[in-house]
């Protein structure tokens, strides 16, 4: 039971990562590698700020701002520098690694004995692991509602149009460079926020904690889509959070089978790959006709 509560708590905290990536991956149609740098950046900024006497809330907001800044760098490299998007993200991600080391001064900082968002008297009064469920829930509800509001505004609609059809968006006077930059800032801000919360929950920040985050984010998005099918945009945002929780439960099940935490990135990738191949696998194993037709028309 405790393990399941823990998995749900982790799912809620990490859902922010999925929501952030959803804005770029699904709405802007851009695969943003920046998040692998932004996640530990958020953690590094929050933990360093806390150890320098900032309040946990201020430190967390700082992490959000740092994430936005990283997103803006990728956005400017792409929109103004005309660097291919995937490469722009990889450049920022790589550069961020050094920045994170500079911020922290070393590769790992512990929060032992420090105040965090999880150390208040209310949080510590909760049963084990319920603190992450409560905080995760509060943050996810607030962020999801804000995103739903944002996407339903005139500006939000122009942001969606930019991803859907940039040629049309421009012809209607939408400044697509600006909407892309704003989208990347919000997205990476959320990822930085996620890094800050996860670091406080774990009790430390580590420069290597970003490895594999893009796969985790994609897994939340894809699992949510595979599990819940056709949805409205607002429902899709909720599905990302549910997908993130399901992903954690899958990991829990796999760990119970005897795999170690060292196998997590391998398992994450396999889970994501299987989910993404699902339509193809379905074709192969359920509808055999198209398969044979494909062979026949090869003459």
């Amino acid at each position, binding site marked *: 039971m405790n393990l399941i509560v823990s998995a749900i708590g982790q799912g809620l905290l990490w859902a922010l990562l999925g929501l952030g990536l959803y804005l770029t991956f699904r709405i802007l149609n851009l695969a943003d590698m920046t998040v692998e740098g932004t996640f530990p950046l958020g953690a590094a900024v929050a933990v360093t700020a806390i150890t320098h006497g900032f309040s946990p809330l201020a430190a967390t907001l700082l992490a959000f701002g740092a994430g936005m800044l990283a997103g803006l760098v990728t956005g400017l490299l792409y929109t103004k520098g005309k660097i291919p998007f995937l490469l722009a993200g990889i450049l920022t991600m790589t550069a961020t690694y050094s920045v994170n080391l500079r911020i922290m001064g070393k590769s790992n900082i512990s929060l032992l004995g420090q105040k965090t968002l999880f150390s208040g008297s209310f949080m510590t009064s909760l049963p084990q692991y319920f603190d992450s469920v409560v905080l995760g829930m509060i943050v996810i509800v607030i962020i999801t509602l804000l995103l739903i509001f944002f996407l339903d*505004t005139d500006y*939000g*609609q122009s942001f969606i149009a930019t991803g*859907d059809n940039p040629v049309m*968006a421009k012809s*209607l*006077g939408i400044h697509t460079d600006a909407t892309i930059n704003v989208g990347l800032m919000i997205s990476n801000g959320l990822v930085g926020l996620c890094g800050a919360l996860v670091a406080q929950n774990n009790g430390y920040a580590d420069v290597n904690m970003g490895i594999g985050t893009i796969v985790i984010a994609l897994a939340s998005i894809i699992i949510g889509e595979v599990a819940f099918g056709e949805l409205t945009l607002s429902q899709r945002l909720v599905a990302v959070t549910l997908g993130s929780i399901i992903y954690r439960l899958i990991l829990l099940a796999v760990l119970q089978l005897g795999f170690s935490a060292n196998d997590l990135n391998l398992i994450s990738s396999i889970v994501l790959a299987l989910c993404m191949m699902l339509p193809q696998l379905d074709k192969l194993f359920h509808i055999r006709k198209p398969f044979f037709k494909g062979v026949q028309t090869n003459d």
Partner: protein
Amino acid sequence: MTEPMLELKNVKTIVNPGTANETTILKGINLTINDGDFITIVGTNGAGKSTLFNVIGGNLKADAGQIFHTGAEITKTTEEQRTTFLARVFQDPKLGTAPRMTVAENMLLASKRGEKRHLMPRRLKQRMAEFTKLAAQMNNGLENRMTTPTGALSGGQRQALSFLMATLKRPDILLLDEHTAALDPHTARNLLHATNQRITEDHLTALMITHHMEDALKYGNRLIVLKDGQIKADYNAAEKAQLTVDDLYAYFEM
């Protein structure tokens, strides 16, 4: 209005300047477009028709010459800035609409063409009746698909929607780049008919590229022949009425 709606003065565009492949596409275009002109444009592939539209639309900058909109120079303004007075319909139905957004959402986007978009609720419901009524004017069942993502529409419906979106907020200048070329003959005729009706009833100023000589003669009150980056002929309504399809073909055989 005393100033012409749009004026091009000696506009040139050069591809690969300074290299061995340097090519001049538009070789000094002088064109005055008056309020209410509905100009059909014909010309071979490579004559510079699309380049002309791109230079007017602003997604291609003129390498020489000047462009004026109601007397104000706009040569250096961006594509986004020009959308305040200019609307376009592309040849490819895929380019004119956002596929994952619904018909109504697309129309709402178009109703704010060229305007600053704020962090204010979009209020789509309040405009649904108005949009449905407009969609019904296209006579192709578009009004029954207001909440359908445009990616699920037929090419004809999509292109009709693109046209509707371009005229939803009255543009000073409407550019139609072979907007019926990708459609079947029947659908193309319907859209062309609706186009003509809308332009003449609302007295819009429009430029329409077409490869159909019959259509070029039938529609509009002015006809321009573009060849090798230059305007070879510019017929007014009276001269155009005397023209035949064979007269136009003669320009292509030289």
